[in-house]
């Protein structure tokens, strides 16, 4: 068992860390304040292959290992969680399922521009009446010759406002949603495609989360990902691996919250000494640091298992559950260290606090992760 990063992983971590410091740190606050998607960094991140981190080389990707992938997402999210989210969703639940389930033609047409960062991806599962209960979707795709006529009302779509290529989960069989559950690739701008209003979310405000409305959209049958009825499998496979990215994002947020809290505790003088000299503050910081390390190790383990080709659901659900809770807890403790200043917009801790909370909800709520873990536990005890 070797718990140290390889030289290559160290180089990749350093790249992401320096990029975040130089390019994201100066804008992290303003894009959150202005609820603005930072187009100015998209091309720069594309040049570094951040949009196709694990995609195959022949389709423009960098094919880095999953731990390196986590390191990039962590370092980006440590400075700007909203951009970390954009990358985690694009890479984890769009680029990855296209790499795994796409045909060669689909990969050339859709995966390559996504992996090169010429286009941005989104994953559209959630609907007003279907969230954790994915099989309750009402969206339909009715086959008509060489086309599907797709109708869908997708909500809370991460990257929705800027996405060019979207994986829409729908059913080709309205009588039996489960049997007909399918994934269809839809391109922005086709007739009947409508981007809804930007969600006025509590955190992750630089990510254009919004609804996507498809009304009688004519989509070629060649855009079907996998086969008809494969949708649920594709969604769950994407989410199992996607969760590792979200876990890494949560670790990044937690680490970022810890960073700014240590900085503040060193600067702020109370009772004649910096806060950090008070044992009560040291205890909080040490708990925070311990949780961050534990979350990181669980995340690395899930990433390691993924590269080994092992069964993932159990470990990625655990990594995501624990890291998301850690991000919320650590950001909350960090805010407490900041006192009144932590509750104001003057310090970045309030942004970490707001951003952290989302990680407990998206890509499967904490409770869904618990269900996944429990299922595996039951299987194990039955053995």
């Amino acid at each position, binding site marked *: 068992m070797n718990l140290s990063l390889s*030289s*290559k992983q*160290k*180089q*990749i971590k*350093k*790249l992401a860390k*320096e*990029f975040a410091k130089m390019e994201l740190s100066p804008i992290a606050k303003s894009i959150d304040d202005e609820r603005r998607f930072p187009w100015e960094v998209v091309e720069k991140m594309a*040049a*570094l*292959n*951040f949009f196709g*981190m694990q995609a195959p*080389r022949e389709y423009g990707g*960098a*094919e*880095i290992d999953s731990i*390196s992938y986590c390191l*990039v997402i962590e370092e980006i999210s440590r400075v700007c969680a909203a951009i970390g989210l954009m990358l985690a969703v694009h890479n984890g639940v769009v680029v990855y399922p296209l790499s795994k389930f796409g045909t060669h033609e689909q990969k050339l047409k859709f995966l390559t521009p996504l992996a090169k960062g010429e286009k941005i991806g989104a994953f559209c599962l959630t609907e007003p009446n279907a969230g954790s209960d994915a099989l309750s979707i009402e969206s339909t795709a009715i086959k008509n010759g060489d086309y599907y006529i797709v109708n869908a009302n997708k909500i809370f779509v991460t990257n929705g406002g800027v996405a060019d290529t979207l994986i829409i989960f729908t059913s080709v069989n309205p009588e039996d949603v489960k049997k007909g559950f399918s994934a269809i690739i839809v391109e922005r701008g086709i007739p009947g495609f409508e981007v809804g209003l930007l969600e006025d979310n509590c955190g992750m405000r630089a990510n254009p989360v919004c609804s996507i409305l498809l009304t009688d959209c004519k989509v070629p049958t060649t855009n079907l990902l996998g086969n008809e009825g494969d949708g649920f499998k594709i969604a769950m496979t994407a989410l199992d691996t996607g969760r590792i990215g979200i876990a890494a994002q949560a670790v990044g947020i937690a680490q970022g919250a810890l960073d700014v809290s240590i900085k503040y505790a060193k600067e702020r003088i109370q009772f004649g000494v910096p806060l950090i000299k008070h044992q009560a503050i040291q205890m909080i910081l040490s708990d925070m640091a311990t949780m961050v390390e534990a979350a990181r190790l669980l995340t690395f383990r899930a990433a390691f298992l993924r590269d080994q080709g092992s069964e993932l659901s159990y470990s990625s659900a655990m990594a995501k559950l624990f890291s998301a809770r850690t991000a919320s807890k650590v950001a909350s403790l960090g805010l407490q260290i900041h006192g009144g200043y932590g509750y104001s917009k003057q310090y970045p801790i309030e942004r970490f606090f707001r951003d952290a909370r989302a990680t407990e909800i998206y890509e499967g709520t904490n409770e869904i992760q618990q269900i996944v873990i429990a299922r595996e536990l039951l299987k194990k005890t039955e053995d």
Partner: protein
Amino acid sequence: MNIIVCIKQVISTDQVKIDPKTHSLIRTSEVSRLNSFDLPSLMIAKELKKAFSASVIALTMGPKISEEVLWEALAIVADRAILLSDPRFSAADTLATSYVLGMGIRRIGNFDLILCGMRTADSDTGHVGPQLAEELGIPHVTGVEKIERHGDYFRVERMSDGFREIIEVPKPALFAISSKMKVSFPSLIEIQDAFSQGQIETWGLEDLNADPQKVGITGSETFVEDLIPIAEKRSCVFIEGDPRQQARSLISKLMEKNLLS
């Protein structure tokens, strides 16, 4: 065209720890990084490589952990990376360092151009470039911002006291590159390729046929007597009064400190 870029692994300036006995810096992987003043040389090497299909060798002297900066150089531009490493090389001053680098370059053999940074972020002498040129008996120019190749000479530009100097230098030559050059990051693909295609060659004292009397602490003509960290203290002064009084008071305070005359 064959280019050799000399680089150094330094310690992040905010994390410097000093060995109380030898007064030399303590290195660990976590606090070490590529000297930021070497990045511009790697960037210029990248431009020249693109323009002239030049071959680029990255060279450094240091302990094994210095391999990390060579990997970085491989990701950015280098085709080959060489680490000059031997316990006898340690605690070298700039003269002994230049000698070892010179011996390394003699072993490499054929080169047209050597590029160095202007100085290092951790010891800040700016000696090694010029000393290395002297060691090899070749011309050098410091503060170079632009390099053009013309047959058997280079035409380079450097900024000097508000003037742009244009200098012609016969090949082979050494240039210390200005830190004003714009730097960029290697991509994930470039890092992947560096590790899948590159390797690091390590040469010790015997490989270089170097004189043991001229390397490391034995070969050093200078010895650091003491190294004392200076804690920078900043204090905030509030200037009271109406704007006119405040301006007057500010001017007199600046004049007192000779910041305004």
